[in-house]
């Protein structure tokens, strides 16, 4: 029927609603309903991929993908790709939705957003915005080996930002919370308080001093250290990048690559924003230890990379109907036993970097860059001057080895991660970290 070695189909159907509040006024309400299928076919060493929208014909899409795979295999034949065999996934321990957002009226969502959004408008704040979003999806997977699975997932969340300005100086503060949860996210987090915190951060930064760059010891707060775990270690652990030859972690399984204080885990089963019960090629998910006490233990795998390198699949994800690629889920540095006060005492002079405006990594060279939201100078073990526009860059392996203390205050932060033009929900987290030397950049 289909003259290919393997094929699979993924059907996704669902709705998303978002409401945007800008300076106290509803700017937009958007409701989207989409359905589509993503189909892959493998012949020899070549993949064919098609996607179809709306009222599609799956058989037709499978035929189109198969034709592409066969044709690619004829025109540029190469080593056969093997897919790791898996059992059909079992969806257990799924997050329970207490308040289904689809059961709550648009009016109520609008008035809730207006109510908590108001709290960001403090004196000195020139502009505020708040966004509420929800999505509710059903995912159905089947493949040519008989694997099949199905799950529903609800995600909700909100983000608030406030801009403070004074004499041509502009600073922004942001807070956001997203999760695999229903409307009860507003019972879990106090959105009004978070709106005030966003405003306070922005106001505080107006009085911050620009950073002076250089090499120095630093303490990273849990949010920024979580970004480090994700950007610097998580991406370099993705086995597709390892196979491409663009990861500094290639051929290093079993080696000590970090301070023995460092343990890094990726766990899709946690009920955080990056949760999924099985990945986008049907593999059951489980907790994966990337680094244990400084030793590199595992990469993150798809069925293809697991078969090639040896490993466990379960980290292959796609945005919507895109082609699945190796991705992270909920990535964190595990707790150590140091206290923040002990770190301050140990470091003497340096910088405390707080929060994140995002980051980026070149996994091939093992170089990363990310921006903190703010920082403090540390002088004689005391936090002194508040600093803005401060960034951190360096070599992944150097920083991992320079970790001298790991805190006991792990915190997770939700966000979205981009790779290959696709965005997927993730969380990352860490306790406080003390690093003996890092390159800090400033204005």
């Amino acid at each position: 029927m289909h003259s290919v070695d393997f094929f699979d189909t993924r059907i996704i159907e669902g709705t998303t609603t978002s409401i945007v509040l800008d300076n106290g006024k509803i700017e937009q309400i958007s409701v989207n309903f989409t359905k589509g299928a993503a189909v892959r076919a493998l012949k020899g060493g070549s993949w064919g991929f098609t996607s179809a929208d709306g009222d599609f014909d799956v058989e037709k899409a499978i035929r189109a993908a198969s034709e592409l795979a066969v044709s690619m295999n004829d025109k540029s034949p190469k080593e056969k790709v093997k897919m790791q065999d898996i059992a059909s996934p079992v969806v257990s321990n799924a997050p329970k939705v207490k308040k289904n957002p689809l059961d709550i009226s648009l009016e109520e969502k609008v008035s809730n957003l207006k109510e908590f959004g108001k709290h960001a408008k403090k004196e000195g704040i020139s502009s505020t915005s708040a966004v509420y979003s929800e999505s509710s999806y059903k995912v159905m997977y089947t493949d040519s080996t008989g694997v099949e699975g199905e799950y529903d997932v609800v995600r909700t969340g909100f983000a608030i930002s406030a801009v403070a300005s004074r004499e041509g100086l502009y600073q922004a503060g942001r807070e956001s919370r997203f999760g695999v949860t229903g409307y009860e996210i507003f019972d879990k987090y106090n959105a009004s308080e978070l709106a005030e915190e966003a405003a306070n951060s922005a106001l505080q930064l107006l009085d911050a001093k620009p950073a002076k760059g250089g090499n120095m010891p630093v303490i990273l707060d849990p949010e920024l250290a979580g970004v480090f775990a994700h950007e610097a270690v998580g991406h370099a652990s993705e086995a597709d990048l390892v196979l491409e030859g663009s990861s500094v972690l290639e051929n290093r399984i079993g080696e000590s690559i970090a301070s023995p204080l460092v343990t890094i885990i990726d766990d899709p089963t946690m009920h955080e924003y990056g949760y999924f019960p099985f990945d986008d090629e049907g593999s059951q998910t489980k907790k994966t230890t990337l680094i244990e006490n400084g030793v590199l233990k595992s990469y993150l795998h798809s069925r293809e990379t697991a078969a090639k390198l040896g490993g466990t699949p379960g980290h292959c994800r796609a945005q919507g109907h895109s082609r699945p690629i190796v991705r992270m889920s909920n990535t964190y540095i595990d707790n150590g036993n140091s206290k923040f006060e002990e770190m301050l005492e140990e470091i003497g002079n340096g910088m405390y970097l707080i929060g994140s405006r995002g980051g980026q990594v070149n996994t091939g060279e093992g170089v990363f860059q990310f921006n903190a939201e703010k920082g403090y100078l540390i002088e004689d073990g005391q936090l002194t001057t508040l600093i803005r526009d401060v960034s951190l860059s360096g070599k992944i392996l150097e920083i991992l080895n320079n970790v001298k203390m790991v805190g006991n205050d792990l915190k997770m932060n939700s966000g979205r991660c981009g790779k290959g033009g696709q965005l997927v929900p993730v969380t990352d987290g860490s306790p406080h970290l003390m690093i003996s030397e890092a390159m800090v950049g400033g204005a």
Partner: protein
Amino acid sequence: MYDLAEKALQAAIKYGAKEAEVYIVKSQKTSVNIQKDMIEGAKENITTGIGIRAIVDGAVGFSSTNIMSYIDEAAKNAVSSAKTQDADPDWKKLPSNQKYPTVSGILDRDIHNMELDECIGHTMEMIDAARATPGIIVTSGSFSRSHGERLILNSNGIEVSEEGTGISGFVDVITNEGETSTAYDFAISRKNDIDFAAIGKNAAELAKKSQNTISIEPHKTEVIIHPFAFSDLIENTFIPSIDADNVQKGRSNLIGRKDEIIADEKLSIYDDGLLEGGIDTGIADDEGVASRKTTVIENGAFRSYLYDTYTAGKDGVESTGNASRNSYLSTPSVGSRNFIIDFPSCDIVADTDSGVYVNTVIGAHTANSISGDFSVEARNAFTIKDGKLDKPIKSLMISGNIFDMLKNINGAGTDVRKVGGTITPSIRVSDMSVVG
């Protein structure tokens, strides 16, 4: 497509919209992926989607779908979303009465009709050219060609129907002998005129040249910024400040600064929706306003923000044709079109006694888009000595502020590149802070 759009428009009016707009896109894209020197596979995507804006008392509701049997429901959702909101006195109306210009160079039948064989051929040209340089692996890359149609109808009589094509190539390479270094190159065009072999060759040679690095001390110096790095910085730091929406909401450094000198007097910047063969060229913007050319900076003086219909109505001016959508899934918002950086050119490296040359940066999206402050990691950076690129630099952060930079531009190269929608030469800036 026209019948579906007409049906959606009628449905929105029937459910109570005072004004309505329908945006439909249909696109077909073929791409070929590279993984470690080999073609990994091919993708064919066909996408059709519809977005409906319904306006009731100035409040905008929006709904979208890719299921054509769901259009009536989507129209109903858009209207009920609009009715949930308070009236917006700043809303004037959807566009009407437009005279459309003619544009050229955005549709190439060779791209539309390109067979898979030719797609594979172009992908191989990139791989082969890169591998001609010894010690290089192409880690990843892609070729793609696309054809798209869009249709915009609104209840004020706007009707825009346009088709176009696009083609692009990209490779990322790494060295596999000596010091590890990476580099990438890409090109994008509306016409079938890309030199794919040059993409592979450029990336490979740059990675090779970037080996045997030295460290440098933190200092202030002249920095020449390649079009890739400069467009990355300008898109993340400057363009947000001229977005009228940000200006009206108090999120721009350029509020109330029209006609002020904000840049070196030899610098001009244009936003041009009509540019021949431009990536963002079309007869109209994404809500049906006729495209035009807007002078943003004229000889150093700041002249204009960029507007869509809503923000223009609020300021009592005309839209500059800058309504932009990422897909049918979202309402239009202000976005630049072809963004052209104009500065007198010279042989810029030869003209520089000492300084630093930066090819690309990582982390530009972490910049402060309001204040314009940034601090990014420079890649494939070199020292400049006596008018020549000298040594590759191991690790380098460059930091500064885009508004200081605009004043400190003192030279530009002859190497104008189309980096997506931004068209710029290499730019030289004095007195930038570099940390090695």
